């Protein structure tokens, strides 16, 4: 017999649990349900536009960006920039952005490495900034050519230059002095470089002539392009269907690496990230290291007695590689793209450009910035920065092509083989050409 209970009764334990659990389940699912139906066209009701930026920076880089973002937000009440690392460092941004694009929720601006932008730009969600760069206040041609090329894919501008660097050689003055070897002047050849490295290697003291990353990644690969370009080769040939260094240029470049490996004068860093290689240099166990300006603050902090000279050459003609990174812009509605461009214009204009370059240890993106008194003073007070700053004028950049990873991967393996003393340059080149050309030939 069931008896109607008074309405003010306590719920039974079972009922309480049942209803409570149901509520909990609903509450647990509501964010999932809510995520499905967002439909903003960019601007909110009161006309302010909020844009999200994933910058992938930490420490000094993050601090500087935070300052610039705060200044921009204060000046522009109609635009609010939300800047965060995006939960990853720049190294992992490609994976992060790929999954973000696949899931349909992506930021408005992200820090994408130069070699990756061509693949990211295949997505229809990447904005086309071509209409914006002709605006007079953008002053597009003021950016260094390498920086402009790096954000242009198939003739369309997909972002703004974010950072530019290039390779020069840092050397340890103490090691040169102790061995009685004259310091390099910058007018030197790769043969001299190899010979110097061999001479300054001392297994008894654990001193290496030079270093080269040997994890087979992009940091291992990009260091060989200046040699290839100097010898008249190119990364991809004119047809775009073949690599442009399956000839003497590639062979001679690999021979240089092979010789370093055979002489055991190179510290081959097989760990991802190349950190140890630079530690070997800063701890005074390496004579010379090709590096970018980003390591100078580290050298200064470690109180290394170092100097910097341009890369050696074969021909006497100056050549180096610039590895520009990009602020790629994604399309979350017209208002947001416009706001993103406004912010990036601010970020890369003179005052902010010089702030970013000096504080974060990079170089100016704009030619006009390099002429600012503030930058010139920074160059004068930072040991070894001048060769990097000068190299901006002649540095070349990698082509922004989608198949680039399929060239980089086998080339990385070939370089590692040379560094670890496995196989001949001829064999490594023919195998790498076979693999890379096969990848390039497929559409």
């Amino acid at each position: 017999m069931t008896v109607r209970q008074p309405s003010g009764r306590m719920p039974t334990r079972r009922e309480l649990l049942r209803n409570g659990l149901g509520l909990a389940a609903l509450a647990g699912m509501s964010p999932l349900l809510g995520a499905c139906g967002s439909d903003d066209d960019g601007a909110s009701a009161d006309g302010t536009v909020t844009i999200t930026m994933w910058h992938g920076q930490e420490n000094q880089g993050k601090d500087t960006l935070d300052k610039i973002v705060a200044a921009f937000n204060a000046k522009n009440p109609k635009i609010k920039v939300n800047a965060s690392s995006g939960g990853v460092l720049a190294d992992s941004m490609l994976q992060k952005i790929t999954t973000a694009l696949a899931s349909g929720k992506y930021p408005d601006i992200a820090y994408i490495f130069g070699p990756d932008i061509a693949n990211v730009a295949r997505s229809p969600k990447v904005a086309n900034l071509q209409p914006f760069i002709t605006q007079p206040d953008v002053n597009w041609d003021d950016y260094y050519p390498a920086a402009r090329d790096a954000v242009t894919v198939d003739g369309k501008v997909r972002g703004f230059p974010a950072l530019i660097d290039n390779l020069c050689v840092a050397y340890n003055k103490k090691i040169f002095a102790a061995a009685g070897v004259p310091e390099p002047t910058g007018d030197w050849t790769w043969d001299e470089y190899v010979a110097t490295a061999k001479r300054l290697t001392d297994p008894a003291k654990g001193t290496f002539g030079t270093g080269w990353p040997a994890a087979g990644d992009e940091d291992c690969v990009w260091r060989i392009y200046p040699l290839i370009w100097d010898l008249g080769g190119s990364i991809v040939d004119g047809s775009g269907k073949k690599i442009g260094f399956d000839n003497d240029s590639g062979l001679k470049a690999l021979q240089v690496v092979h010789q370093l490996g055979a002489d055991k004068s190179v510290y081959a860093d097989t760990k991802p990230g190349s950190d140890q290689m630079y530690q070997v240099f800063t701890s005074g166990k390496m004579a010379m290291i090709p590096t970018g300006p980003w390591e100078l603050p580290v050298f200064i902090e470690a109180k290394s007695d170092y100097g910097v000279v341009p890369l050696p050459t074969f021909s006497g003609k100056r050549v180096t590689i610039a590895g520009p990174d990009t602020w790629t812009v994604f399309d979350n509605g017209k208002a947001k793209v416009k706001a993103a461009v406004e912010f990036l214009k601010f970020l890369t204009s003179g005052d902010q450009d010089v702030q970013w370059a000096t504080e974060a240890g990079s170089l100016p993106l704009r030619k006009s910035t390099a002429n600012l008194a503030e930058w010139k003073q920074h160059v004068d007070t930072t040991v070894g920065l001048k060769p990097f700053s000068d190299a901006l004028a002649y540095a070349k950049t990698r082509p922004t092509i989608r198949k680039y990873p399929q060239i980089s991967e086998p080339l990385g393996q070939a370089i590692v083989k040379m560094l670890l003393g496995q196989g001949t340059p001829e064999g490594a080149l023919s195998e790498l050409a076979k693999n890379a050309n096969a990848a390039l030939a497929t559409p």
Partner: protein
Amino acid sequence: MKTQFRVAVVNREPVRDPARSLRRRRYGEASTAWSYVLPSVAIILGLGIVPMVWSLVLSLQSSDLITPAQWVGLKNYETLSHDPNFRAAVGHTLIYTALFVPLSIAGGLGLALLLNRKVRLIGLYRTLVFVPFVVSATAQGVLFSFIFDSHFGLANAVLHWFDIPAQGFFADKSQALYLLVLIALWSGVGFCVVVYLAGLQDIPAELVEAASIDGAGRGATFRFVVWPALRPMTVFLLIWETLQSLQVFDMVFVTTRGGPLESTTVVVFFVWQQAFEVFNAGYAAAGAYVLAFGLLVLSIGIRLIRRGDERKVSRR
């Protein structure tokens, strides 16, 4: 979901018709039960089944996650079947598993036997053996890549002490994979020790006593009393460690990234590389499915063996 709750509320009303009441009560019971399991159902569906189905679909497409995918049927699987890189990755994974599983189980058993006695500070020793298991694979990878650095590592300094020439370690493609096994053992053994210790302490003392009264020596006691009693733990460890080592990834990622010269590319690393480095997400999903299929076959096989076992036991 909402309707179910409404029904649940209706159930509160007094009911007179006994048949209806039964039906309602059953219905109500079921809805109550569903509300209990709903959170886990949502989690299993959302985080387990949906991604599995999605990656199955993905494995039948040519997709890069960025541009619209194209349906290619079984072509990814066909390409996989004669991809030398995938074959190498499978080979490395099998070598790793074939070494890691028996060594970790044997090592775990040995250490557990040593630690299963009453000596001073035994709690400390047991904790120390287990500590490496708690260290994350990433931290281990970083730690050991410094120890095994070919030029500045501690390992070569120790070898030098014994007049053994410096080794390449992670810079030597014939050593890197075995080194990974060694590092995995450093931490993996601790887990086996704990499982075996629990098993050893479950063995009734009377059994061991009876065996010794019957004149069994140490060897015989182990063979006829301890080892059979540990059988369930051994089977569990065999399955668990095999599944774990077939899916090894994190340590490879932090120490070698598949190098040097692709000598440590394991299957999951291959999948990662295909999906995120060269943008063949469909192809990567196919690789992942081949691994999943292998794991499935393995689990079914072991289940069958165990069922046969149980029958044997019940027949006795």
